[in-house]
């Protein structure tokens, strides 16, 4: 019984590591497996991945892991130090359990990053491929627009957007998207320019297939991998900027336990009750370190040109 199991696993290994794949699916699986092996040998990247898996687990099982209701106030127990009366990270100025709030904040951070990391690259992909494929005045106009957005400091532009739209989590996300798309448009355009003159695109065009289908069906899939690399490298930045907006009171509004906003409320007592501001900051630091480590590792695996960081 167990011997059969081992044999089966060995054959799976062989199937995954074969030099002569027998089907398209197998070739894809082999490629993924080899990529995973390369990724696994990068200790720092694996640590990064572990941090992010933890973040997702916190988000899914948050209500079970949190020891208390993150919104429950207990003014009699305000500003307790870490460890006191079962509060792992202490309590804040309204007596809320900081540990539970940090756990709850994981979901909000994930929500922001996911939304921005899907929408902004998609926007950039559309703009970049349109500009690259159509060329001419479309290219000039779109790229000029991209350059203008790129030329200005992101945070300040995001501040101006939020000022116009009004403070709030959704508007902060919108401002992040509006300032994050230009680099992706540049990447997508560069990729498109190298693909567009290739023979397989000519072949498709001769078959009478329209521009939109060529862009969506044949150019987008080839742009995706370089965009994904860039997105993972950018995610830490998104977390930090979102926290910065929250800190300035322009992102999630109280009593939402957004990490940046929590630091902002802890700022007043930092010299006497250090834990109120420190704990959510450690959470932001850990998560963005995770994204940075993962991004570095993924770049080494997916992009052989970069040569790797170490």
């Amino acid at each position, binding site marked *: 019984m167990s011997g059969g199991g081992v044999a089966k696993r060995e054959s799976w290994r062989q199937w995954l590591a074969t030099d002569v794949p027998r089907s398209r699916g197998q070739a894809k699986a082999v490629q993924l497996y080899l990529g995973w092996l390369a990724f696994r040998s990068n200790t720092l990247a694996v640590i990064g991945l572990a941090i992010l898996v933890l973040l997702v687990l916190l988000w899914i099982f948050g209500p079970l892991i949190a020891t208390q209701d993150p919104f429950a106030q207990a003014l009699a127990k305000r500003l307790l130090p870490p460890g006191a009366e079962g509060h792992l990270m202490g309590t804040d100025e309204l007596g809320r359990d900081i540990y539970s709030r940090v756990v709850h904040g994981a979901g909000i951070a994930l929500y922001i990053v996911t939304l921005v990391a899907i929408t902004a690259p998609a926007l950039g992909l559309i703009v970049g491929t349109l500009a690259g494929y159509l060329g001419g005045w479309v290219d000039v106009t779109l790229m*000029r*627009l991209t*350059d*203008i*957005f*790129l*030329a*200005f*400091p*992101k*945070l*300040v*532009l995001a*501040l*101006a*957007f*939020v*000022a*116009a*739209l*009004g403070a709030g989590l959704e508007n902060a996300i919108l401002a992040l998207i509006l300032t994050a798309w230009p*680099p992706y448009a*540049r990447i997508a355009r560069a990729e498109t320019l190298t693909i567009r003159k290739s023979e397989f695109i000519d072949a498709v065009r001769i078959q009478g297939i329209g521009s939109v289908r060529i862009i969506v069906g044949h150019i987008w899939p080839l742009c995706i991998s370089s965009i994904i690399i*860039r997105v993972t*490298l*950018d995610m*830490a*930045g*998104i977390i*930090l*900027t979102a*926290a*910065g907006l929250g*800190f*300035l*009171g*322009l992102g999630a509004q109280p009593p939402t336990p957004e990490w*940046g906003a929590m*630091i902002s409320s*802890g*700022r007043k007592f*930092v*010299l006497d009750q*250090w834990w109120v*501001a*420190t704990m959510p*900051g450690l959470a*932001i*630091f850990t998560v*963005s*370190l995770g*994204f*940075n*480590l993962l991004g*570095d590792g993924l770049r080494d695996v997916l992009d052989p040109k970069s040569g790797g*960081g*170490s």
Partner: protein
Amino acid sequence: MSQVANNESVERRGGRALPLNDTLRRIGQITFSVALTMVGLLAITFVIGRVMPVDPVLAVVGERASNEVYEAARKAMGLDRPLIVQFGLYLRDVFSGDLGVSTLTARPVSADIARVFPATLELATIATLIGTLLGIPAGVLAAVYKGRLIDQVIRVIGLFGYSMPIFWLGLMGLLVFYGILGWVAGPGRIDVYYDGIVPTTTGFILIDSLIAGETEIFYNAFSHIILPASILGYYSLAYISRMTRSFMLEQLGQEYITTARVKGLSEMTVIWRHAVRNVMVPLITVVALSYANLLEGSVLTEVIFSWPGIGSYITTALLSADMAAVLGGTIVVGAVFVGINLLSDVLYKVVDPRAR
């Protein structure tokens, strides 16, 4: 957060070596693109100013004004004209230095900014100095000892810099170095009782106090600036050391390095006299970019340290819906950003003989 974009633009610039006769046309192109970028920025701030939910006319006349008064004010503000005409008028105002009047301070925004901007510039300059003086040697060391312990340590230090929220690091710095150790002065630019003693010449307190011969004030200002500048400088250190390392690795693989070694030059001479000198040219762009980024990074740092610069100005204005001040600040920061980028482009061409 925009480090990768910066890498790309550095590479873009690095690859450009133009023959002499193209230089003039190139300058023309740059001027045109800078002008277009500025108009583009103004278009963005114009649109932002129009979509905001606060009615600018109501803000002026008040809610109880009659319809006639309201219409008259609307006309006087030019809001009844077509958008494109309004935009033209807006451009004219901005280019003649009129950024509107702040509702918070009741002074022209341009005067306000002229008052607060030197504080930001002073902070960003000291921070860039710290980041450059530590970052370049760190990057060189990391490249020379590639893969060894010191390289790993420098990489981790840089990685931490990329991963920490700057406002949190600022708070922690205040907690440790001001609250617990008492090594530095607290928030603000200078102690209150020294305020306004030194006459403003350059706007930089460190320089002004030296000119006035007030060493006590100089030390006080220094103990105020050193913590925020070090924290900002840490971020530029992370970026500068990473870039220096990759430039150095590129140089150390070149044949002239082998030649120098074969000639019997000491390793110190090979590295510092030969390789580093070649790295200095692309590093100019890197330092300029990190300087521009610090102007942005200083927004959050200024809030933490109650530093009376443009970052504090913009955020205070934001929270009281003072749109003229917010947009004026955005324009100035954007313009300085573009200006520094342009300057680094020009400097690069002056310094690198191949790019002339």
